[in-house]
């Protein structure tokens, strides 16, 4: 009885709340430090979004604990559409399996509004590695078991998990060398101290084009329009992604409107071009419902990958 009364009350109040949304500036929380690709794309998106919504969109950086602090803060904030988060593959697919005592449910505590960026990873090798294809790389690794090393931005990052998956699928053995962020990892790859790396396309592309490293394959299921010459790897379907999410109880009308405006924003030619410059193709996931399904699928994929890799952050 009481519950149905509350539901009725909510039904009466919520549309009103949605009608005058946005009533004040919108905070888009980026759960990482300024300067990274998630931060930069949030700032790119904020510009057309505030024109469309008629309220300022402020980007707030709340880094810490692999993005969990920022995502958790949004999960527990008022669900009125004024606090949003750039939820990413780490905060919503990998970390839940990586951390003990994980503070939120990546599916049930959020409304997944719109996927904004989807970047393929590429398998790159130092120029001294005698391999021009994945098959040659596998042969080289089999001939030198445990001698080669692959770098990653951190334990449990997409780069690490992709490397572990590669080892399993090909039956090869490499040492994993984690770094603090991908910049120092790329440096050691360039210098030849580590032999291979699964890096995101945007950061790897300049060095690939300059011939400083050799790209062997993409990690996506289909070829990328940025590097159509690169083949896919059998058994791989990994991308790095992030998108706008809201607290779970955000009114449906707000989520719909937001999803529509974000979709329109990322399809504007100048925004599209800026996101493409970061290695992102316009994502095929187009509705909030499809985004939720996508997050659920990714969560499953990575929980299996994390388990198999034996990685933990706790």
């Amino acid at each position, binding site marked *: 009885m009481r519950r149905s009364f509350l539901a009725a009350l909510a039904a009466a109040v919520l549309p009103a709340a949605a009608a005058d949304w946005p009533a004040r500036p919108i905070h888009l929380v980026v759960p990482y*430090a*300024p*300067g*990274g*690709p998630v*931060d*930069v794309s949030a*700032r*790119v998106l*904020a*510009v057309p979004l505030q024109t469309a919504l008629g309220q300022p969109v402020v*980007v*707030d*950086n*709340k*880094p*810490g*604990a*692999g993005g*969990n*602090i920022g995502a*958790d803060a949004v999960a527990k904030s008022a669900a009125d559409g004024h606090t949003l988060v750039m939820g990413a593959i780490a905060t919503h697919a990998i970390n839940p399996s*990586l951390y003990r*005592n994980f*503070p939120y449910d990546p599916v049930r505590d959020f409304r997944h509004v719109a996927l904004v960026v989807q970047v393929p990873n590429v398998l790159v090798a130092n120029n001294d590695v005698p391999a021009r294809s994945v098959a040659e790389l596998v042969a080289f690794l089999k001939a030198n078991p*445990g001698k080669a*090393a692959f770098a990653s931005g*951190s*334990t*449990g990052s997409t780069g690490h998990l992709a490397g572990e998956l590669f080892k399993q699928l090909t039956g090869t053995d490499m*040492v994993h*060398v*984690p*770094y*603090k962020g991908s*910049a*120092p990892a*790329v*440096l*050691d790859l*360039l*210098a030849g*101290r*580590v032999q291979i790396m699964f890096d995101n396309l*945007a*950061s790897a*592309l*300049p*060095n690939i*084009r*300059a011939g*400083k490293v050799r790209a062997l394959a993409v990690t996506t299921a289909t070829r990328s329009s940025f590097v159509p010459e690169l083949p896919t790897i059998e058994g791989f379907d990994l991308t790095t992604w992030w998108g706008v999410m809201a607290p779970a109880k955000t009114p449906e009308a707000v989520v719909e409107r937001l999803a529509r405006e974000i979709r329109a924003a990322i399809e504007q030619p100048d925004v599209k*071009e*800026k996101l493409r*410059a*970061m290695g992102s193709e316009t994502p095929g996931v187009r509705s909030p419902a499809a985004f939720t399904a996508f997050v659920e699928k990714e969560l499953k994929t990575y929980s299996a990958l994390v388990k198999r890799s034996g*990685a*933990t*952050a*706790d």
Partner: protein
Amino acid sequence: MEVFANLWMGFGVAISLQNLFYAFIGVLLGTLIGVLPGIGPVATIAMLLPITFNLNPLSALIMLAGIYYGAQYGGSTTAILVNIPGESSSVVTCLDGYQMARQGRAGPALAVAALGSFFAGCVATLIIAVAAPPLAEVALKFGPSEYFSLMVFGLIAATVLAHGSLIKAIAMVVWGLLFGIIGTDVNSGVLRFTFDIPELSDGIGFVIVAMGMFGATEIIMNLEQKEKREIFTSKVTNLWPTKDDFRSAWPAVLRGTALGSCLGILPGGGALLSSFGAYTVEKKLSSHPERFGKGAIEGVAGPESANNAGAQTSFIPMLTLGIPGNAVMALMIGALMIQGIAPGPQVMNEKPQLFWGLIASMWIGNLMLVVLNLPLIGMWVKLLTVPYRYLFPSILVFMAIGVYSLSNNPFDVLIMAIFGVLGYICSKLECEPAPMILGFILGPLMEENLRRAMLLSRGDPTVFFTKPISAAFMVASLILLVVVALPAIRKKREEAFAEETK
């Protein structure tokens, strides 16, 4: 010479009205945020990023770069006047700069810091122009084992940094190392000393610790003295450095510039290390090491030149390899990518105007900073006449805002307060904060590189001695250890410090 033709072209681009305007905006903003404790170039550049979307890439880069090196100038002002490192790189400037201010010599300290920075900026700009690509190769030569050996050397040299007892210095270094361990272990992902507080899982920020140990502590110390709170301004003698000041400062500026230019190239805290390094070098070379920590002008000139040179040369790995050496460089890469330019080896050839225009603008920006800062010295010194009952609360408020703005987290403000109290206890025990801060910076880097080197060598510790650069640092460390341990020298060191402890 091709370099000069290129530089000439760079100046041609940089001197356009629009680019001069953005350079000025950049250095002005940079100076302001540098003066404000805690509010650093990273937060500022992030906020300004959307503005750059509609600028041409060069103007955007010029402005952002201006903010960065402007902050290096501004940061020393707060360090000298109120003993609060306005930027992380000005921590060392606190040591002697503030003591100079206490003696009424804030003016000369500020002037030497500005002129030293200007000189260093000019030299470093020239270095980038002439030798950026070959120097980038040097950065590539530094792998985990080389970094580890460099840090061992730095840590051993750091014991020289402290005055007073050697035991206390070592204790403080170890304490710093332990604080540095807090957070997530890079290799295994295990959380260490975080007590289930998620905010601690990325460790404690260096700026927070430095602001607490220097700034907050200083305020508590001053409040404690009810009657004779220090008033520096009654003792202000002159605003300009004397001839003697110049004579003792210029060799320090030269050495600081050289050291800063070298270490700045190394990604990962190079610019920061260079100011500590320069201070150690000056103290070691000085015929009166006992003056350090008590207002030695070399102790301001060396580190200030070093951090500015380091800030400038840290552009080298970014421009030539596309690898950000620090958070600011990561932001610049972000800004460039938005413009459709992927920073990397090809930028120099494909966008020569951008590359050389930026370099030329650095020199112009440095000139602007000197012109901007020298007349301001009088004004800054006047700031000291503000009564403490107004000055202290406002400084505390700015510190809190600054620390909060680092990651929008109130927890960090609490941590700063805790370190303020710790710093107070340390100063009561006559333990210097500088070795602790250095241990805090170097500890995590050392561990990370040691374990990475071992991973890469498959557990073979001889790599530290078989690689030439690494071996050189190890041998140097060994010599330094022997020198410190030799009875005769130890006695001399104690003599030098004997006066201070009295």
